[in-house]
């Protein structure tokens, strides 16, 4: 008789992982969720979530995250803090390797989400935390009455621009195309703000400054013209990159590192599932992560039932 520590181990405590925890708990599976640092994932750095159903006035990201965690814990989910170093697949028991211990389970749900993408231009790495930021909700208040920039044009970029407009005197919104990708509703609000100046068709070539950010060097991709914008802060919101480096070549990924799954969230290894932003898909949202988490948990339940019959 094979034994294991948990029926299912969920890796990652964002909306996908927490939802999977609610469903596995209600299925009375012995479930563990391993979170690297802080439950909630990207919700934790979102000021106001306005597109998640059930909250007509919107809800703060950390509040929504707390609610999901409490709901999962109510159904028996155990949550620990730890960073997964490696997954060692087995038949049928997989091993999750943490820094200080190893845990086993026949089913795993990878819900490690995604992190903010960096621009990869000169000066960026040196000036992170010294004027270059990936978290408007964290650092926005430190730029009260200052002139700042924000790079991006999607939902996150526009939401963060609105948040930053509470503090900053002026915001230069830098976007590489001639129109935004973000929701029209957000575009209308951003374009109505006097303190926002949009730099269309523009990319950041470099961040300048010795000990702190002093300026952003911009290039217009249509005209080739280079401008130097003196700003004390620059927020970067240009999309996400999946947290899949710890998997190395274990599972098939798309060219950006997002995991391929089938409609049941199953990967190519029996018993290993993936859910949320870490998946290769077309829409990365809390609403879709929650759906993924529920499907993955249900698939795990079916998988374990089949395993027990064998």
């Amino acid at each position, binding site marked *: 008789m094979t034994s294991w520590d948990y029926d299912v181990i969920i890796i990652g405590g964002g909306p996908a992982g927490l939802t999977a925890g609610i469903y596995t708990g209600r299925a009375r599976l012995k479930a563990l969720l391993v979170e690297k*640092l*802080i439950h*909630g994932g990207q*919700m*934790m*750095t*979102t*000021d106001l979530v306005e597109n998640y159903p059930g909250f007509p006035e919107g809800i*703060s*990201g*950390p509040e929504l*995250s707390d609610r999901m965690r409490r709901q999962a814990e109510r159904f028996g989910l155990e949550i620990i*803090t730890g960073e997964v170093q490696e997954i060692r697949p087995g038949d049928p028991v997989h091993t999750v390797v943490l820094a200080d211990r190893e845990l086993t389970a026949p089913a795993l749900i990878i819900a490690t989400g995604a992190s903010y993408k960096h621009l990869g231009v000169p000066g960026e790495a040196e000036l*992170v*935390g*010294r*004027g270059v*930021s990936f*978290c408007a*909700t*964290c*650092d926005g*208040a*430190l730029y*009260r009455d200052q002139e700042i920039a924000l790079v991006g044009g999607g939902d996150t970029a526009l939401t963060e621009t609105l948040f930053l407009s509470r503090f900053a005197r002026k915001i230069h919104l830098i976007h590489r195309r001639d129109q935004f990708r973000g929701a029209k509703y957000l575009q209308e609000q951003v374009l109505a703000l006097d303190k926002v100046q949009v730099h269309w068709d523009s990319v950041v070539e470099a961040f300048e400054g010795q*000990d*702190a*950010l002093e300026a952003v060097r911009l290039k217009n991709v249509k005209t080739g013209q280079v401008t130097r914008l003196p700003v004390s*802060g620059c927020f970067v919101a240009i999309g996400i990159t999946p947290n899949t480096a710890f998997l190395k070549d274990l599972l098939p990924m798309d060219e950006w590192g997002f995991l391929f799954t089938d409609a049941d969230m199953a990967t190519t290894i029996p018993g290993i599932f993936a859910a949320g932003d870490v998946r290769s898909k077309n829409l990365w949202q809390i609403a879709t992560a929650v759906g993924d988490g529920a499907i993955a948990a249900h698939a795990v339940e079916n998988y374990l039932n089949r395993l027990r019959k064998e």
Partner: protein
Amino acid sequence: MAGEPLEVSDASFEEDILKSDIPALVDFWAAWCGPCRAVAPVVEELARDYAGKVKVAKMNVDENAKTPAKYGIRAIPTLIIFKGGQVVEQITGAVSKGVIEAALKKAL
């Protein structure tokens, strides 16, 4: 005061932190900063664990602009350890308790 982080302001900073006779750990935070929420319980634990040895304090950067500017804080959460009025360690971003304790032990 033992056991709980002390709330400090621009006005009280010199008296509470710079003139403290034991090392001080200050957590610079803001209400809407998610990662700050992650660090907060760790800071509370440290306040209990190190009561009497380290003065653990919090400063809301949204209500206090001078002190964060003085120390060049451009990102939060930032934790600074002061000893004899001088900065001895500075940690930016949400980190684990182990990382903060390692920095504290160096300062003690």
